[in-house]
C-alpha cells in the first residue's frame, strides 16, 4: 500500500487526503489546529496528527521514515518549502511536492530544486483561458 503524508489540513489538504484514501492509499495528515480535521469525513481511515510540519517528531509520528510521498499543502509557502526539503534531504522521501501561493517565490523554490505547484498561476491561467481562449 502506498503511503502519503499530507501537511496542512485546509481545503486543499483535506480534499487530497480524502481522495488518496479513497484510492486505497495509507494517508497521514498533519495540522497544528485540531479543528482543521473536521474537514475530513468522519470515517476517514488515515492518521490525524496534531503538530507543525517542520517538527521532526510530528513527521515521524506520521510515519515519514517509510512514506512514498510527502505533500506540503499548508498556506505558508516557506513552511511548505522547508517541510518538503526535510522530507527529501533528511528522510529521503522519494516524491515531494510543495504548494505555494505567491508566484514571486516560485522562482526561489525552483532555484532550490523543490517541485512546486502554484495555485495562483494555475487559476489565473484557467481564467485567462476561459476569457480569451488562450492561456499563458
Amino acid at each position, binding site marked *: 500500500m502506498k503511503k502519503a503524508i499530507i501537511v496542512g489540513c485546509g481545503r486543499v489538504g483535506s480534499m487530497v487526503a480524502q481522495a488518496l484514501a479513497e484510492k486505497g492509499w495509507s494517508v497521514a495528515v498533519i495540522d497544528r489546529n485540531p479543528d482543521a480535521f473536521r474537514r475530513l469525513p468522519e470515517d476517514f481511515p488515515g492518521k490525524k496528527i496534531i503538530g507543525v510540519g517542520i*517538527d521532526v517528531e510530528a513527521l515521524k509520528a506520521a510515519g515519514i521514515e517509510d512514506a512514498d510521498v510527502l505533500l506540503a499543502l499548508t498556506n*505558508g509557502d516557506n513552511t511548505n*518549502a*522547508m517541510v518538503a526539503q526535510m522530507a527529501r534531504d533528511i528522510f529521503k522521501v522519494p516524491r515531494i511536492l510543495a504548494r505555494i501561493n505567491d508566484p514571486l517565490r516560485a522562482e*526561489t523554490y525552483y*532555484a*532550490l530544486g523543490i517541485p512546486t505547484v502554484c495555485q495562483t498561476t494555475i487559476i489565473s491561467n484557467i481564467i485567462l483561458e476561459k476569457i480569451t481562449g488562450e492561456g499563458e
Partner: protein
Amino acid sequence: MYIIVVGGGKVGFNLTKVLLRDGYEVILVEKDKQRWTFLERVLGEAVYWGDGCEMRVLEELGCSRADVVVAVTGHDEDNLTICQMAKRKFNVPRVIARVNMPQNEEILKLLGVDDTICGTRIIYDLIRQEIETDKIHFLATLKEGGYEIVEIVVSKDSPVVGKSVKDISFPPNCLLISLLRNKEIIIPSGETVLEAGDSIISLISSEQVVALRHLLAPKEGG
C-alpha cells in the same frame, strides 16, 4: 563589508544598530509597513521595506555583492528560505540564521545554513555551564556527533591522583587531548601520571561527561 539583515524585530533592529555604529554597510529588510516606518525613523536609509523571502527584493538590494546575510525573523522556515536563496542564488559566502525552535538548528545546518543562532539553546547552555562550572568547563560542543570538549581539573581526592593514564579506567568514548600542569601543556601518553590540579582537556561523548567529572573531580562526600 556589506551585510544584509532580514527581519526588523528586536534582534534585527539592535543588530543593525550595532553594525551601523561599527561602520559596516548594512541594510535591514522589514516587510511590515508599520514596523518599517518605526525602524526608518530611528535608523534612516539603512532600512528597506519589502519581503526578504522574495528573490527580487534580495536582487534589488545587491545580494550578490553581500558578504553576509543574517536572517533573524521569528519564523524558522522564513529564515531558512532567505539563507538558502542568499547562498545558492546569490553566492553569499556566509549566511546566518536565527533558529526559534531549538530542534531546527540541526535541520537548518543540514539544509545548507552555515551558522545558526538559537536563543533558547544559548540560555540553556549558559545555565548548564553555570551549574557545573565549579568542576567542568565546556570548551566546545560538537552537536552533530553528540560530543563535547571539556576541561576538568583533577581534585586532590580523586582516585586518579598518582596513577598513570593506562591504569585508569576512563568512561567509554573518551579521549584525553592534553593536560595543563603549571602552565605547561602535556600531551598525555599511557605512562603519564596524573596529579591533583592537572587541568585535563578531553573529547568525550555528551552522556559520559558526568561520569568523567565524578572520576576526576568527585564531589566532596561522594
